[in-house]
């Protein structure tokens, strides 16, 4: 079988998410597509077929979705370790290391958000993702609820064990609860010395922090295991089910992927997420950056992919549609760089439209007739 990915091995990849890499890759693709890749033989031109679409889809799963999910699970576990280490001897260095670990898991989560199907969304009524990200439900900010919960639990006497955290509503756990616990003290001071003093004065704050981190790590591991090992006790990894079309609602895998990405972009705009996420820690821009990069990887591929949705759109002579998509990704990055949330929402809205129209149309994929119009 042809291995067109080797074409891009000469392109240095700093972190796998740099948008300039995509530009470089796209330029090489444009130059090389007609002679180099995608068909049965080495020099066959790339064409849009069910097989090439499946190839692109498989690579999105294997090179983006699962690695992102794995990274989040590892970051969540690293947060558990950092929190435990910090709580053994609370000090400023330990706090900052734990905060860094939280930031890593948060940005990791925003690389998963465009893929909310399968393991993180395995139950219509209480999907697991809510217990990581309460904001994702409908943009409600539960900071006040969490502050009250932390203060009451720290001053109470109930054992802060696994059963306690298992019983908490999704509004009181996850990344936001950890952010509140790590980036401010009981009086909402964000000074490191005040926060550390709070942990020293109230050891139950450490119990609370460690319990939250542990719960998050368990969910993150569940997501990863669901993708790679066993989904809903079926004995089969969701990866296999997804790629053979055995999705929960019978959606075609590519339809599910594009719809999930589109809903994510709509969520970013409609819920003004850049104004709500990562506010206490001040990492909102990093979260938006991670999220857009992960979304862009759906189109442009990752880790040197050649058979991507973008290259298939080009093969289908949908250059203008792809140009629109790329322009809107660029607009999103510029808005993040400029720290203009308004422009970011505009870009997210335009990309939402791209995932509804230009991308599925360019790939000859139908999302469903009832999906967009009701009566």
């Amino acid at each position, binding site marked *: 079988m042809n291995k067109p990915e080797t074409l891009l091995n000469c392109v240095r990849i700093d972190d796998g998410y740099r948008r300039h890499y995509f530009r470089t890759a796209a330029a090489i693709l444009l130059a090389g597509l007609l002679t180099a890749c995608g068909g049965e033989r080495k020099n066959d031109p790339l064409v849009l077929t069910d097989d090439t679409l499946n190839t692109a889809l498989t690579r999105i799963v294997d090179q983006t979705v699962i690695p992102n999910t794995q990274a989040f699970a590892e970051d969540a576990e690293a947060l558990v370790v950092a929190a435990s280490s910090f709580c053994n001897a609370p000090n400023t260095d330990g706090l900052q290391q734990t905060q860094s670990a939280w930031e890593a898991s948060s940005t990791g989560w925003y690389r998963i958000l465009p893929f909310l199907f399968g393991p993180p969304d395995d139950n*219509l*009524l*209480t999907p697991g993702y809510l217990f990581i990200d309460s904001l994702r439900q*409908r943009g409600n900010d539960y900071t006040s609820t969490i502050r009250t919960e932390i203060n009451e639990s720290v001053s109470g006497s109930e054992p802060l064990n696994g059963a306690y955290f298992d019983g908490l509503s999704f509004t009181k756990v996850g990344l936001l609860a950890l952010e509140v616990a790590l980036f401010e003290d009981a009086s909402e001071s964000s000074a490191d010395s005040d926060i550390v003093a709070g942990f020293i004065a109230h050891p139950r704050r450490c119990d609370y922090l460690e319990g939250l981190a542990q719960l998050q790590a368990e969910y993150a591991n569940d997501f990863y295991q669901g993708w790679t090992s066993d989904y809903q006790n079926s004995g089969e990894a969701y990866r296999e089910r997804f790629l053979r079309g055995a999705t929960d609602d019978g959606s075609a895998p590519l339809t599910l992927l594009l719809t999930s990405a589109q809903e994510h972009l709509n969520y970013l705009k409609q819920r003004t997420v850049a104004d709500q996420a990562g506010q206490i820690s001040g990492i909102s821009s990093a979260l938006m950056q991670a999220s857009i990069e992960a979304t862009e990887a759906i189109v442009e591929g990752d880790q040197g992919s050649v058979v991507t949705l973008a290259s298939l759109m080009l093969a289908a002579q949908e250059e203008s549609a792809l140009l629109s998509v790329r322009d809107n990704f660029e607009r999103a990055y510029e808005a993040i760089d400029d720290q203009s949330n308004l422009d970011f929402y505009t870009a997210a809205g335009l990309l939402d439209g791209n995932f509804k129209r230009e991308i599925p149309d360019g790939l000859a994929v139908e999302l469903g*007739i*009832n999906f967009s119009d009701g009566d």
Partner: protein
Amino acid sequence: MATSDMMTRRQILKSGLFGSTVLLPLHGLALGHSSSVMESEYWGSAVLSEDQTGFASVSRNQSAALEQTAFRGHGVCLNPTDKNSHSILMMARRPGSEGIIFDLATGEELSRFYALPERQFQGHACYSEDGSEIYVTQTIFSPGHPDHGKGMISVRDARNFVQLREFETGDPEPHEVLPMPDGIHLVVANGGRFPGQDGRSNDATEMSSSLVIIDRTTGEISQRHTLTEPKASIRHLAINKEGSVVAALQVQRQAMKDTRPRPLAAVLTSAGHFDYLPAPGNLWLGAHDYMGSVAVHASTDIACMTTPKGNFAAFWHVSSHTLLGYFQMHDVCGVSVSELNDCFVLSNSAGELRFIDPVTQQENTSLRQSYSDLRFDNHLSQPVIIRKG
């Protein structure tokens, strides 16, 4: 048991909410009753195919009679006294001007009728219990006239389709109409939005949605019911054996200032009490403000409601107002019943029919039908069993 969106995940999973905790009139149904080889069960639906609009009757994965129409169809209904001729009426999607009678067995067009001047059909119709009359939802379309947008029922002679009379529905945008079991009254879902100048777009800033009970002969409105949510458009209906009316709702979010999920299902009891059916907030949230179709399985008194935007169907026990569970299916909208298999039938835009046990909400995959060249539109007709040989 409370089922709010504040319940924890583990509480929900431990509660067995979607299990056997609800005492039902009938215990589990056996699916897949073997049917006579001489019997075929047909359903009709508006369809889209290769960018063309039409009607299709489908049965046993083999016969998909497709008749093209110049318009996109919507509601489909049977003449209750005319099953031998297998005739079925499909109305044009709103705002429409035509209704067409097809032979369900062959797909052949039998006849058609048209809206009168300054009237727009609204997508649904029904027959009287004796099959002599057809009731069609319509609005007055006369921009600038004081009556513009007024909801009406056009009563047609079922033999020649001549309009016999028309009467008001009390609120704008009447959508689905059904005959009540008493044989005297109709129930009409007034969507409540006022029509724009093009007839298709609607203004939801000032809505007046209602569920009304109307004397089919005199046009007298004997009951008018509303819901607490003013932006909930009451649009689709089903009736159980006791005469309770289950309503599927469509919330006009663009005219609202908050994002809190709203209930999308309601029931008017035979005692005249109209209220929402319960469900956790996440279920409403997942439905994206839209329930597209509803049917009732008579013997179990279970209602099934579909949401193509949420890709699932939800099930309630009507009399006890209890949520039973859900079934996920991409772009599902059409819902009917299978008499031969004693279960619900769901359809979607991928041309699939799936057969769902009302009690367990599990699919009998051995009955699955697929029509790869068809895309079923919003609604699926009641079934007709045709016996051959």
